[in-house]
């Protein structure tokens, strides 16, 4: 937890192969990547290109079939599911495509749920949740349920939840897929602003090339093969 001098994320020859009987599908093929401590990387590619698989491997949601995955100095490649759960709880923040807030929890509680699973100090967690909500301009909406919030407010709550555990790495999945260009720009701006404000590294998966200018670097992935880095 916290910010490290070493790379926030380092992938070294990572492979992910799905087997079904005798058939093999290579979802990610020998991908290597390094994301700096406060760097924002956009990962673009068409549907089925392997970008989501790569994001999942980077966040400890999937284990690679081969290669090394190092997050903030910890090699998580060989972690068992239990250890990966703890790793995600403590080291990674996620912003999901469809926001995925818990509908029966208020904005504050949606943040606190992260601390709840970590069994962190309740008082400190509440203070952190309130601080995050205030920074996101949601102090007045802390007690509102998701259905009482606008789309943008819900997105901000989701961003706050991703930062609740003070992660080394934030992984953001298709944040603009369901939004029009204008709203998509606003959401990306919000996410990038928050990520930069905290000096956290982030990987943003998107199929929308128009959003790549928000990142420090854009990588493409096609058929599981990560393309050469290109500075945005």
């Amino acid at each position, binding site marked *: 937890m916290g910010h490290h001098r070493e790379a926030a994320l380092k992938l070294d020859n990572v492979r992910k192969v799905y087997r079904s009987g005798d058939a093999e599908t290579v979802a990610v093929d020998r991908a290597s990547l390094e994301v700096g401590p406060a760097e924002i990387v956009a990962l673009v590619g068409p549907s089925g290109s392997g970008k989501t698989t790569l994001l999942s491997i980077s*966040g400890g949601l999937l284990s690679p079939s081969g290669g090394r995955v190092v997050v903030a100095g910890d090699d998580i490649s060989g972690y068992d599911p239990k250890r990966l*759960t703890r790793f995600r709880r403590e080291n990674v923040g996620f912003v999901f495509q469809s926001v995925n807030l*818990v509908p029966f929890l208020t904005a504050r509680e949606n943040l606190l749920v992260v601390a709840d*699973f970590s069994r962190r100090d309740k008082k400190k967690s509440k203070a952190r949740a309130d601080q995050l909500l205030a920074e996101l301009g949601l102090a007045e909406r802390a007690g509102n349920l998701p259905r009482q919030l606008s789309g943008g407010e819900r997105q901000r709550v989701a961003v706050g939840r991703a930062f609740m555990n003070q992660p080394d790495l934030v992984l953001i999945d298709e944040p603009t897929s369901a939004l029009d260009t204008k709203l998509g720009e606003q959401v990306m701006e919000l996410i990038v602003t928050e990520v930069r404000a905290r000096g956290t590294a982030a990987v943003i998966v998107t199929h929308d090339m128009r959003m790549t200018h928000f990142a420090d670097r854009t990588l493409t992935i096609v058929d599981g093969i990560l393309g050469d880095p290109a500075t945005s």
Partner: protein
Amino acid sequence: MKLALLELRRRPWRFAPAVIALVLLTGLLLTLGGLLDGLYNGFTGALRAQPGALLTYASDANLSVVRSRIDAATIAQVERVPGVEQVGGLGTVLLGAEVPGQATEASVALFGYQRAPGGVPAPPEHAGQVYADTSLKAYGVKEGNTLLLGPQRYPVSVVGWVSDTDFLLQGGLWGTVETWREVLGSARPDQVLASGTFQVLTVSTTAGADPARVAAAIDAATGGKTQTVTRSFAVDSLPGITQQRSTFNAIIDTTFFVAALVVALFFVLLTIERVGIYAVFKAIGASSGQLFAQVVLQAVVIAVVSFMVGALLALAVGSLIPPQVPLQFSASRALQVAVGLVVMSTLGSAVSLRRVVRIDPATAIS
């Protein structure tokens, strides 16, 4: 922050189907249990209340109080058996009783006794006086009433109340030995008993004596004229008692099973519905154990709430049932149902464990 409790509080309607089903099942369980207890107590109260560890019947009576006869000479033999501390005679007669101001006769079991059963005072001072079981209040019996017993309308007056002393579902009346003999003689002239003869003996053993050995010694001493058994054995030997209990218990066990099934089905469906949000929870660091604990907590809360509402429902239904129906609600039965319901709900919710464990956190990212 307890996610499970917050969801229950904020989305109670989601749990309404399970709660409604469990409330009805609770009502059914309590009513069935109440009927079983009422029947059992109504059948066996008089025998369960008897003093002493042993009951001695005539060997040819097949443990039937009504058919048994033990004469004075045999009683004297029983009293001399080593290990026997105290012996008392007991007799009963089953008949109808005319209650003042009531059109319907009450069914009663009049007892004459030498040794006071538990909860029953020493025999009344005068012949013709009886203590009545409180169950007879359902037939309109009041203290001070004169009841007319049997075809000869033998009058007895109620001088006090006792409880849980019914016999074969007939209201217990407890009078002197003389009263019992006279009523038996007037109602069944062919069954008049000689003075000193009783139907059954209640036998207390000396401290440290083994009741089973004393029972065997009594039957040996009487030359096989008697059959002596423990009180609990005598109770279980009453006609139909064992079958009655096993039938009711089978229905009750099945109902508990149905409750577990209802909870299992409900939480399996709920878990399927929650796959998406559980995947998110797992992605942000929740373990399967933490998520499953939330499911179990919800199942337990639902069971407790359903029990409370179901208990009120059972009480409401009970108040509508005629008082002559042997329905008895008891705290111990309620506790048994509450614990059973919580256990079965927990087991039912455990069916969701496999599904919770199998939810892949990677599915949180599409």
